[in-house]
């Protein structure tokens, strides 16, 4: 039987605090000064919060071993959901991302985040293969790439990035050497360097010398060399053969802020909202009227802009601090767990929370691209709320069972 006094209630309190702040901000974002009322998004979010906390309560009551045991089954179930949403899902702006059941939207990619987290945690915890071995890397990469491809087809670049970040982070945590990690992501650097052939040649020389000095396993060395060559040579060639409008479409996909009429305009307005909040903010319900009326995503992706405008730098600092606290607790939990599975699970959970938090907050003032990732706990949305609380559930469960092997 679960002993409630040993549960890390402070972590749950932090999550609850963020969720309540979120509900107030959603109310404000849809507030209409003329009628003195708000659209019912905040009301639905309260129901979502109750459902999310129920999911959280459920998770902390199941034995950790059960999550461990069922993780692959869970993964297969999520995979089927992702396939289904591509075939019969509802679309908004031409992208099929969720199922509708009356007023409820189910976003399978959020379910898939939990499923991949469980499956990767299990595989990386029990695989007898050494961290740098080919088999271990390729199997965990395949586990990740399959849902990523399905999600890119939706198409949702932001969520796909969460999956990649989760894989890299869990590799790192479960013992893959940092240099190997750098070699694995090096093709991206090659892509950046390839925009001028001189920088690319210099980059290639540096890369080859690094490979020669550290002498990694043969397949990693070959992978790094070939993928860098391919990205450096083929990409500029393909790029130059594209028509201007095709280039623009790809660039807009990678960085939606380039599209001046949609995301680009949102960034401008979000910056003005955040910046004009100043140190102390304009006050609750005072900001949304002037600047945010036109932002179509103000209750979801740009909820942090509402916070910045109405509560200023102090408000944003408080929310960031609460997130920092959650991340800090998460790292401590991941560190002290004796079971590798529990440790991976905790580390992966804070990876997902941190990555979405960082990209979403950075987006409101132009640090990170506009990718459509919600802010955990604060953004309006049911599956995002349930996902965030489930991750907190994983953290608390891992913490509670930290002594188990």
């Amino acid at each position, binding site marked *: 039987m679960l002993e409630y006094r040993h549960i890390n209630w402070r972590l749950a309190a932090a999550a609850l605090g963020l969720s309540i702040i979120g509900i107030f901000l959603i109310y404000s974002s849809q507030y209409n000064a003329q009628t003195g009322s708000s659209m019912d998004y905040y009301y639905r979010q309260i129901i979502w919060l109750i459902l999310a906390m129920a999911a959280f309560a459920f998770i902390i009551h199941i034995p950790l071993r059960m999550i461990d045991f069922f993780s692959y089954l869970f993964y297969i179930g999520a995979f089927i959901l992702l396939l289904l949403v591509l075939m019969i899902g509802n679309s908004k702006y031409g992208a099929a991302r969720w199922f509708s059941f009356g007023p409820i939207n189910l976003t399978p990619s959020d379910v898939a985040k939990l499923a991949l987290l469980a499956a990767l945690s299990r595989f990386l915890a029990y695989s007898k293969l050494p961290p740098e071995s080919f088999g271990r890397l390729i199997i965990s990469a395949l586990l990740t790439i399959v849902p990523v491809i399905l999600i890119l087809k939706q198409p949702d670049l932001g969520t796909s990035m969460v999956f990649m970040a989760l894989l890299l982070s869990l590799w790192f945590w479960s013992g893959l*050497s*940092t240099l190997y990690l750098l070699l694995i992501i090096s093709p991206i650097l090659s892509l950046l360097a390839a925009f001028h052939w001189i920088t690319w040649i210099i980059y290639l020389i540096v890369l080859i010398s690094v490979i020669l000095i550290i002498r990694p396993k043969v397949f990693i060395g070959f992978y790094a060399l070939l993928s860098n060559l391919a990205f450096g040579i083929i990409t500029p060639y393909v790029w130059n053969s594209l028509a201007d409008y095709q280039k623009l479409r790809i660039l807009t996909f990678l960085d939606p802020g380039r599209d001046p*009429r*949609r995301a680009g305009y949102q960034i401008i307005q979000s910056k*003005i909202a955040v*910046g*004009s909040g100043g140190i102390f903010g304009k006050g609750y319900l005072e900001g949304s009227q002037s600047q945010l009326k036109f932002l179509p995503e103000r209750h979801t992706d740009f909820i942090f802009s509402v916070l*910045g405008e109405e509560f200023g*730098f102090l408000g944003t600092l408080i929310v960031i601090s609460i997130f920092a606290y959650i*991340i800090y607790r998460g790292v401590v939990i991941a560190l002290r767990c004796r079971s590798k599975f529990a440790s991976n699970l905790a580390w992966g959970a804070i990876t997902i929370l941190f990555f979405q938090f960082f990209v979403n907050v950075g987006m409101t003032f132009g640090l990170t691209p506009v990718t459509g990732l919600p802010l955990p706990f604060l953004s309006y949305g049911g599956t995002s709320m349930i996902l965030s609380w489930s991750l907190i559930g994983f953290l608390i469960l891992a913490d509670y069972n930290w002594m188990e092997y």
Partner: protein
Amino acid sequence: MQSFGNDKSFRVRLAAILLIIAFSSLIGGLFYHQVILRNKYTILSENNRIRIQPITPKRGVIYDRNYQVIADNKLSFTVSLVPSEMQNGVTIKQMMNLLDMDSVTVARRASANFIGNYIPTPIKRGLGVEVVSILEEQGERYPGITYSIESVRRYDTAIAAETFIGYIGEISPDEIKASADKEYRPGSLIGKKGIEKTYDQILRGIEGTEFIEISAQGQIIGRYSGKEKIPAVPGDDISLTIDIDLQKKIVSSFHEIDSQFCCGAVVAIDPRNGEILGLASFPELDPNIFSGPIPTDIWDNIVNDITHPLLNRPIAGLYPPGSTTKPITGGAGLELGKVTDRLLLRSCLGGMKFGNRYFRCWEPGGHGRLDLYHALEQSCDVYFYQVGQLVGVDPWCEYASRSGFGKKTGIDIPGEFDGIVPTSGYLNRAYGANKWSKLLVLNFAIGQGEFTVTPLQLAQFYCGLANNGVVFRPHLLREIIGHDGNPVKIEPVQSFHLPYSSEHLRMLNEGLFLVVQGGSGTARGRRKKDYHITGKTGTAQNPHGKNHSWFVAYAPSEDPRIVVAALVENSGHGSDVAAPLVGKVIDYYMTEKVEGFMKNKAVTDGT
């Protein structure tokens, strides 16, 4: 390698450093925007609006094959409404005064073209400089009203260009939905028809954007410094396969024929590669009238015109081909071994009885006994009735279909029609299963009855005859000329091969050669002394009025360089009206455009 970067404390320290950097950059960024720049943003949020000003790219110029301009742009002004800067009661009234429009029209235009509160919504295009000077001088009296410079299409009107160029117009809601492309938005100009539609992506370029700061009083303060201007990328120019000089000759020749014949179509193709040299539909439509919203009365006039100027006759007009498709019947007979070239069929006495029906030949006096060559030369119906009966309905349809009829040619402009090859399946649907006579094939054999073709399909068929059976897809795009100045040539695509052996093709061509060059050919009046013409006349029976006249020909017979097909509606016999028209067009092309013959001409002139 083993120890470095591999132990847990190192990983924890590295993770901690990365996390601290990440949190610091968030807090630092927010500090910079919320504390250091707070005054700048406060002013922006309280007083000013940012307007998004789209910069229209220059639309690509359309040239003919010799780089003569067919369509280019002229500058004009567009007056727009900026919803976020409107003042109740003032803006709409001033807009009505300025543009001389009624409030309903203004409101309809504003809602149809609405994109966003901060983006100008085009209300009226193609305005002169007077309107702009009013706005420039008394801008404060016109709150929420702005103008922009836009290019408006200008088409060469003397050459029936609408047939292939089409026109551009404001995008419709359906087109926005269908494209799903972010480049299109309400109020955008988009190719609606013809080349302008097919190659819209190439021609249109990419819209740029400027961010303009507007004061609370509606005055332009200047460019918003927080966001770079995105320049427009002009569209690529293109060069068509059309030869403007030839096209002009086609138009003038058509107008030289008796003015009672208003309607028809002319197609000219280079059989060696499928390049369309001339394409015209009559009566012509002026594409310039489509550049803005079309006034209702003009539109009604066009739609109600009994000559149907909107019908693009060369690709969408369906006519029985008359005798011009007799080579299909002859070719099918040869291929199936039903006849040989020298075989004399039963004598034509001005008609013949099949079953209990009497089928007439066009020549009441009769042609006597003929072989294939002379049957083609004199276009004897009785000969082809007999061959058609030997071949049968479905085999005949098979050869017609493999000769390119009953399906689209794949020309690179939209709106093409299939035409009808009346197979037994089609006839069962039309008449009821087996409720039709097998003798219908006699009609098809001489190009009448349910069998219908477009002028383009007929020209394509003769391209195949002229080019030893090889048919290239008819096309209009010749070159794309990018900004780097390097033209990209469009390679001709082989479409299909006529279903006749080269020996049989030679026989058919020889028969068609006699049509012009033979002593009793139906078009012997078209004979020239400098070169040979091969072709075929046709008279399409028209249940609604006088017969349509066809002539299709290629020249020079020995090394064909041009195929011309012409149809003149309600003008009677092919040899009377269509043949002289084609003769003029071919003669112009041969003497002005084909090098060897130009030289000959110079020599003759000299002597």
